[in-house]
């Protein structure tokens, strides 16, 4: 019996601790529910995009895009107010994952930043055009990493691991590799809203489920699409300095002005990690394809295939974080590289003579490229 007060104390502490946790959970759930019901402040990009696609609550949905381009009326089941808000939040997350345009990022972006390491990565950087890249005439572009086309594939077998990946798990790969961050839980709104947005896009563009569209993924550039001269780090460096350094910086660390991100990092702590498929050593065709398709802004599709592979090769050699499955030793090693290499490169870069102009013929276009050192 003398032990009774001790036991009572322990039992009370347990009950209070667990009870408090349950109350906190109730409060957090109520907060989430309130956010789900609140009106959504759209980013300028989303206002334009969702406005163009006529997203409004209603019994039926008819896509203005399809009506205008195909001169066909496609009437589908409409969206509830709850659906519309989910699509709007999803669009905001894709356009501005870091929440720089939001007044309360943790509320308006479902804490997406919690799952991203660094201050640069945003879905829109790879999934250009808020996941739906089109040219000036409204034509969807092949190999533009479209979220709509990606969603129509639904669950997809991963071509590297052979695992069946639902759309939600594919988003997680973006979080852990391309954003070098953490996996959100499958049930998290941050995943569900992006899925809702992707699904809406596919409806608005009249893409049919289970079909493969050219906009899905990136039109990759394998070595066979070049003259097979081999990927050249030195040429890649020279090209990078000529074409990319102005925005992405000498070290590829990105460019920020007055707190605004001008160009995201392609190396260093804010960039994708070694296990991302953007990494040339992991998959050598994806980053090259992205560069040819999207870079430099305003001069898209001007680089030759070999140029893109060379630049991708060079960029992938710059220090960047280790991947999720590479373990703490690799992580430490990469952190060390990221701390040591930039000052060393700065020193060597400032004293280095400009490389000689390069001459090169590629498979795709015969003209020669003159590369001048930007230093």
């Amino acid at each position, binding site marked *: 019996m003398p032990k009774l007060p001790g036991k009572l104390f322990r039992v009370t502490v347990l009950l209070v601790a667990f009870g408090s946790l349950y109350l906190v959970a*109730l409060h*957090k*759930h109520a907060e*989430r529910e309130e956010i789900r019901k609140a009106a959504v402040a759209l980013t300028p990009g989303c206002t334009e995009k969702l406005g163009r696609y006529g997203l409004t609550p209603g019994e039926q949905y008819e896509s203005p895009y399809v009506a205008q381009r195909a001169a066909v009326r496609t009437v589908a089941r409409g969206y509830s107010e709850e659906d519309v808000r989910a699509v709007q939040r999803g669009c905001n997350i894709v356009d501005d994952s870091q929440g720089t345009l939001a007044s309360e990022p943790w509320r308006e972006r479902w804490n997406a930043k919690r799952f991203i390491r660094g201050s640069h990565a945003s879905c829109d950087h790879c999934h250009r055009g808020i996941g739906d890249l089109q040219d000036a005439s409204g034509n969807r572009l092949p190999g533009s990493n479209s979220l709509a086309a990606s969603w129509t594939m639904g669950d997809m077998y991963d071509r590297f691991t052979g695992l069946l990946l639902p759309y939600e798990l594919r988003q997680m790969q973006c979080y*852990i590799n391309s954003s070098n961050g*953490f*996996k959100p839980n499958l*049930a998290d709104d941050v995943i569900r809203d992006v899925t809702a947005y992707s699904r809406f896009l596919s409806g608005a563009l009249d893409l049919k489920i289970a079909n493969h569209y050219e906009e899905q993924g990136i039109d990759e550039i394998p070595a066979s699409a070049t003259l097979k001269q081999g990927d050249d780090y030195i040429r890649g460096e020279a090209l990078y300095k000529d074409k990319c350094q102005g925005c992405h910086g000498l070290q590829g660390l990105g460019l920020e002005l007055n707190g605004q991100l001008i160009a995201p990092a392609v190396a260093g702590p804010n960039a994708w990690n070694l296990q991302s498929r953007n990494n040339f050593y992991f998959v050598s065709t994806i980053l090259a394809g992205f560069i040819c398709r999207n870079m430099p802004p305003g001069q898209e599709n001007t680089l030759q295939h070999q140029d893109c592979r060379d630049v991708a090769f060079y960029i992938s050699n710059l220090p960047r974080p280790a991947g999720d499955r590479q373990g703490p030793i690799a992580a430490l090693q990469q952190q060390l590289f990221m701390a040591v290499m930039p000052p060393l490169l700065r020193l060597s870069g400032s004293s280095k003579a400009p490389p000689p102009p390069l001459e090169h013929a590629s498979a795709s276009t015969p003209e020669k490229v003159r590369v001048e050192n930007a230093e």
Partner: protein
Amino acid sequence: MKALAIALRSQALLWQQWPKIGGHLVVGLTLALVTLPQAVAFSVTLAGVPPHFGIYAAIWGVLFCAMLNPSPVFHGGPNTAMSAAIGVILLPTAAPFGAEYMGLALTLGLMCGLIQLLFWLIRPLGRMLDLISEPVINGMICGIGLFLIFRSLTTFGGLPANTEVEWPLWIAWHSFLAILEVGNLHAIGIGLITLVTCAVLQQFERLRNWAILIGIAAGTLYSQYLSARLGLENTLIEQIGNLSSIRPISPSVPAFTQDALPDIIAIVPGAVTLALLGLFQTVAAMRRMSRKAGGFTDSRKAIFADAVSNCLLPFVSSLPTCASFNRMWLVHKLGIHSRITIAASAVLLLLLVLFFARAIAIIPMPAMAAVIMLLGANMLNWEDIRPHFKNRRETVVFLGSFLSVLFLDLFSAVLVGSALAIAYSKWEQVNPNVSLRGNVLKIKGNIYYGSLPAIEAIYHDAVTRVGDLIVDFSECYYIDPEGVRWLAAAKASRKVGFVDRRSGQNRRSVVLTASERRRRDRRRQSEF
């Protein structure tokens, strides 16, 4: 009449022995119920094989170990680290859950058993496993305890598991936040009811053995109440599910076809890792728990039991087995140390799966997660780890092992902890305690190739400063051939005398220098 008398006598015996038998049954049932969700979860989420692989490991693996391993606290069966290792080793070879993958999983298990058999046959290899010190084991136990809590968080909150493998602390933190923000409140309620019931009942000695069973029953009742009121389609509570397809035994043959040969060769290094992973845990867990229970079991017997079990299990569609820290901890906590209880748990699990599959099917997973979390919390026992903080070296070894579980994995924890412990013991050996008092140079420790430089430095300094130096190596417990040669050379130089009292009879054996000899002769002459 005779038959009636025998029946009456056996009934009386049963009645007398009932408290003991009842105790075995309660503990066995608790163990069976605790093992079941682990078996399902480990096989499906970690190893990438159907749930019956884990269940057969929980039945046949436990039974084989109970029969072959003489330790009364040893509980085998499916293991987290081994299951995870199987998933990682086989991922590059075939798609999980496929026929090819399952065949290779069985081959991997068999190779693991054969390699473990080598550890039993080659005695020095087996002895190497004894180099895991107590702080390493306790560090692992605490790490595994926390790991179990972290792993169960998502199931506790009714959420899908986070499949991220690295940075468990971050994943745990994110999972905790996910429970608070988007967790299934019904699941959390069931988990909390189970957890509170178990934790409260555990405070009372009489109810301790019943705590987990009552906790699971309370969680299941609440879950059934919710389902009746709201419908399972609204509560979305995950349950153990239908296991009625399980048979008592499911014969299988590991894949050894010519087609599979390249894959089999590719997984040989993985099989070595798997074998070591199992043996390290078995030896460490058995030694720790046997010591806590006040007994001793030769680790070679445990190696033999694991090896033979793992050679047999691939033929009954089972995952490989090794010691389970958490279930052995539970056996110890429940206070019944007996192989009968362990074997009873396997038999009871088989009976449950065969005859009560429908009743088991409704047990909610959050309740099982709560039980596993409680087990994890019980493994963090301050009384056990406090002694390690009284010695700096033990503290470092303990922390090294503990943090390695959290930041690396179990296997690395064993390696890091053992490396630290061996490094410390080596450091102690290469730095013997050498002191000069008067003209006596006393060496405590080893005289061997590693410590000689340290001894020589002080010896040469003493020789130059002190005349008639005497080297006392009475407290040396090991002198290697290089040390003997050094001592012979020192003696040959005739600058020193030696004292060695290592016979233990206080007998003095003195090798005198020339001047000492002269002094002794003079003393004897005067005495004479």
